[in-house]
């Protein structure tokens, strides 16, 4: 099957039906491995056992941003090529990305209280992630409240592209401004500053969460394609009823 064939929703559904059980199994196995590593990882010399919250917080933050980046690329597909699968991909990614961003904010607050002495501070990193969450809610409200799905999709695509500006702001906020949030410690010039005994389970959890994101996203895309078929068939049913009564 050529890559271009997957752009056909019917072929895409067949591919998803075949892939989903394998992806779900890989996700579960990776979570078992990752959680085992996370729970047995040594305490950090400064954070103590609260470092275990990082195994949830960091992957959630990455996937919150990844979800928006995915929506931005899909937005180009919606606005430039008007491909229906591009809008399906963006709409399916929005609630999943919002959930991961929410998880990032909550786990960050639960880590911040014992470490910083506060659940929340209006520094650049925390505020820009909160803005990302609000942008997600904005996109979801556009999708869920638009009477015409096509207009809702175009409005959501424009918001996704405008909101993409926030992604580099989140990433570099700790370098551009003086923040309470620590600077980059994993992907940085000169290598990671984290000990391998903590870094390895962190990567395992990041892979597990990424597999979860991909699995849920493909399943949500399948649901969205089916929902559009239901809508089309109901319109056809209404048309048939109107023709029969006239």
């Amino acid at each position, binding site marked *: 099957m050529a890559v271009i064939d997957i752009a056909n929703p019917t072929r895409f559904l067949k591919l998803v039906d075949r892939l989903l059980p394998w992806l779900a199994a890989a996700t579960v196995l990776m979570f078992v491995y990752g959680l085992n590593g996370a729970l047995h990882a040594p305490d950090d010399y400064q954070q103590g056992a609260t470092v*275990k919250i990082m195994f949830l917080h960091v992957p959630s933050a990455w996937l919150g941003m990844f979800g928006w980046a995915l929506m931005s690329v899909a937005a180009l597909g919606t606005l430039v090529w008007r491909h229906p699968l591009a809008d399906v991909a963006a709409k399916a990614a929005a609630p999943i990305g919002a959930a991961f961003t929410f998880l990032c904010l909550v786990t960050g607050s639960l880590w911040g209280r014992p470490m910083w002495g506060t659940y929340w501070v209006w520094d650049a990193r925390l505020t820009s992630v909160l803005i990302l969450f609000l942008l997600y809610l904005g996109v979801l409200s556009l999708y869920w409240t638009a009477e015409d799905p096509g207009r809702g999709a175009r409005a959501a695509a424009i918001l996704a592209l405008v909101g993409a500006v926030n992604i580099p702001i989140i990433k570099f906020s700790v370098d551009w401004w003086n923040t309470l949030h620590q600077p980059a410690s994993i992907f940085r010039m000169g290598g990671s500053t984290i000990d391998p005994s903590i870094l390895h389970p962190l990567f395992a959890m990041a892979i597990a969460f990424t597999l979860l994101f991909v699995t849920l996203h493909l*399943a949500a895309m399948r649901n969205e394609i089916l929902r559009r078929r239901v809508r089309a068939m109901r319109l056809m049913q209404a048309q048939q009823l109107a023709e029969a009564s006239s």
Partner: protein
Amino acid sequence: MNLGPHADFIIAAYAVAIFVVAAMTAWIVLDYVTQRRILDDLEERGITRRSHRTGKGAP
């Protein structure tokens, strides 16, 4: 395993994560079951998509 003096915060973080992931998964699975049931119901009533009537594989 000793979670130290901040065990409540660690347990709360993992509890929230489990709840959010479980809720998201359940919502997607239930949505699939619902859409599938509606589609099957419509097809039973003889309503088919245009692509099915013409025999083409397009959506």
